């Protein structure tokens, strides 16, 4: 009995002294951060592990959090890859010097124009447009037509019925802010948002959260990406139907990129190649994303680029003006 206590006591002391540098690390494991929904990320990552026998350790964070984390870890990168998140965030990441270029031979034939970084610091792998996720029950009950323009959202009947995320925590919301700036011009866009704010129920931290809130009837309209509206709303059985603004809408090219100084660059490159293959791009049907590989299958009902009026979304401008626009937004809205 006494011995047990002594041993226990000593081992605790030992753990206190030795346990501090509890560092784990193993070979042939790819470490990554992902900004995709965890339930979705799991599908791709498990398929990758099955195909390549390379193990993956991953954490989900919103795109903004990934960027913060990478900045904090810049002196000692913990991961090799950043998987998922809008291109604007990757442009900010490139500017911060957090990424290294990689030109994937798999993507070379079809990744043109703004589908990837001109210097290959990040690579696009899907497309998605901003839209409105509407709760069909609410619209039926109140006999109001679905919003089909940015101006429609200002209607007084939508007071307290619209939800979106904070532009500073969510790539979705920032894309929306940049979109209205491009549609109306910056000054008018901020006047617009000031009026829109009166109709906002509340701001979320995660971009896709408003879709489920619309599904639950907490709000009538959620502003989100079309694939999130379908994947988290309509296809789950919630009474949600998408609509799009007639003035034109912005979109994201979802990207992935290698981290500068990451521990497993070769495994990271393999993951990028795999993500662009037909096999991986086919999987994107589960989340209604539009794959960039032209050979890949597109989910039935998914919103393709040809289905909506797109603006000429300038992601370089959006990425470079990120900080300024957000500060201006916060000053004006006060949140």
């Amino acid at each position, binding site marked *: 009995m006494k011995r047990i*206590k002594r041993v226990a006591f000593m081992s605790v002391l030992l753990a206190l002294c030795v346990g501090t540098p509890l560092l784990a690390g193993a070979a042939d494991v790819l470490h990554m951060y992902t900004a995709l929904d965890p339930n979705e990320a799991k599908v791709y990552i498990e398929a990758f592990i099955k195909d390549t026998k390379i193990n993956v350790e991953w954490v989900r964070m919103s795109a903004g959090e990934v960027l913060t984390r990478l900045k904090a870890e810049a*002196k000692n990168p913990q991961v090799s890859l950043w998987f998922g998140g809008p291109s604007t965030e990757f442009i900010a990441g490139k500017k911060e010097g957090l990424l290294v270029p990689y030109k994937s031979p798999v993507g070379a034939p079809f990744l043109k124009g703004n589908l990837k970084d001109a210097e290959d610091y990040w690579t696009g792998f899907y497309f998605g447009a901003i839209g409105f996720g509407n709760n069909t029950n609410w619209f039926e009950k109140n006999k109001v037509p679905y919003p089909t323009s940015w101006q429609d959202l200002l209607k007084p009947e939508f007071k307290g019925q619209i939800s979106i995320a904070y532009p500073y925590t969510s790539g979705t919301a920032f894309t929306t802010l940049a979109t209205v700036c491009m549609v109306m011009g910056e000054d008018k866009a901020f006047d617009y948002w000031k009026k829109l704010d009166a109709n906002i129920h*509340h701001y979320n*931290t995660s971009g896709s959260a408003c879709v489920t809130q619309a599904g639950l009837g907490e709000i009538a309209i959620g502003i989100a990406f079309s694939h999130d509206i379908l994947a988290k709303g309509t296809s789950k059985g919630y009474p949600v139907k998408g609509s799009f603004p007639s003035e034109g809408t912005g979109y994201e090219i979802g990207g992935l990129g290698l981290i500068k100084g990451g521990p497993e660059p070769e495994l990271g490159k393999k993951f990028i190649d795999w993500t662009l293959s037909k096999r991986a791009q086919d999987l994107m049907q589960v989340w209604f994303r539009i794959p960039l590989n032209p050979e890949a299958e597109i989910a039935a009902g998914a919103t393709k680029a040809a289905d909506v009026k797109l603006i000429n979304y300038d992601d370089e401008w959006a990425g470079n003006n990120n900080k300024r626009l957000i500060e201006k937004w916060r000053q004006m809205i006060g949140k």
Partner: protein
Amino acid sequence: MIRTKRFVAALRRTPSDVKRLFQEPLLLMGIVLVNVFLFLFVVLPLFKIFQLSFEDNGRFSLQVFVDLMSKRYNVQPLIHSLTLGVAVSILGTLIGFIFAYAITRVNIPWKRFFTVTATFPIIAPPFMMSLSAILLFGKQGFVSKMILREIIQFKIYGFWGLLVVETLTYFSTAYLTLYGVLQAIDPALEDAALDLGASKGKIFRSITLPLATPGIASAILLIFSQSLADFGNPMILAGNYTILATQAYLTIVGMYNMKGGAALAILLLIPSLIAFCVQKYWVSRKSYVTVTGKPSAARIKVDRSLTKYSIFGLCLLLASVIFLFYGMILFGSVVKLWGANHSLTLANYAHVFTIGWEYIKDTLILSSIATPISGVLAMIIAFLVVRKNFPGKRLMELVSLLTFAVPGTVVGIGYILAFNQRPLLLTGTAAIIVLLFIFRDIAVGVQTGIAELQQIDPSIEEASTDLGADSSITFRRITLPLITPAFYSGLAFTFVKCMTAISAVIFVVSGKWNLITIAILGSVENSDLSQAAAFSVVIIIFILLALWLIQFLVNRLGGGRKLKFEKAESLQSI
């Protein structure tokens, strides 16, 4: 050479207890180690926050605060947090007082039941109430949709929602504090008044209430700091009512603005520290309670049926509200898709034990490593503070208490600032989470240990020393066995806090190590309410299992003494 001589000379001049330290190298080493750990993991993170906020190009500057306060989006959360804190502390103390008074002074039935109800919120993850509030009073809520058929719309996002959930979460603190105070008031005083012909109402107004006033003030201040530090509930329920703790988090995580986040953390720290100091050094000194140790006559309890049943009814109402909130979580966890498809299913639990298993495993592993270390360290500190004399003893006690006064968000920010570069590069490791767990709640273990030790006659230990044992043997063989109940209470408390922690650890979780509470927050944020409910139920089950296991160990090793878990919590107020 000269230096050594001086040192030896200085040593000769030092008082005897310092000299004695050098005769016991193990004791000296212990003191040095404890101080080093406290400095590194309590003082340094706080220092880093101050440094980042006040230093501008190597000079002291208040510029960051001027910038901060000139912006509406920073001033509002400060006002909101303080308003909410005041409202919650008053309402929570009122409810806590009703329960404590009913149980100590009124002859009501079902006392055991009310005691359990009033203490249950302590072991539940703090943000469970918010989750439940959405399940009950959201637009698709059980009450708002199914019972009231959307006649009344509740505004749960914002001040009123937060007021209700935080009150229901934190009134337990007031209950435990006031239970202790009301119990300790000598019945002889009340008896004397009764004999002199005072009515029960008069006794309450002129004796019980005045004697309980310092306790009430204590409870208000404690709840005020708990409300200020609350992170989980505002994260879920604040809506547009922005709160300091969550804004500091969003400033760092969303805006990548470390300096701004650190400054917000200081705004949060100041009122918490003020509340802590007022409570510790002013209110608790005003205590009128005298513990005589004399066996006093049994307390005469209020037995008039009108008073008795109205208080009983009030308690029953409050208890049913609490039951409703927790019961809803259980119900929500077996519903397929909350709000759209209410068929019953176990799929959410399947999710918890497949996709969620990594989170559960990590949480259990990290909590199980941190709990015993924190427990032993707390007892060592308590032993050193009560039984040994060495320079800086008071400071050591104060620093170990400090962890308690500082809101989790502030600690979390301090940790990422202090440990993200060499030589103390810990971000991304399990170690940083374990260390945070160890030092986050060590104050309670230390306080329980000190209270227990002060009741034990030092002559028992002196006898051991006289027989030739050194300090470490005495601590191991005599002191530690004597304070086993305090030790296990500390263990239980720490384990619960580890399992339900969120405000500080959210800053230090990483790819390799993640926690259940973070997963719940993610689920709620995505409105996967049923999934979040299932996770919460699983946490509570693991906590109850662990408490049972610790109680079992106490029974086996500690000679059947009852686990004083509630005591550990109420000691916060001492």
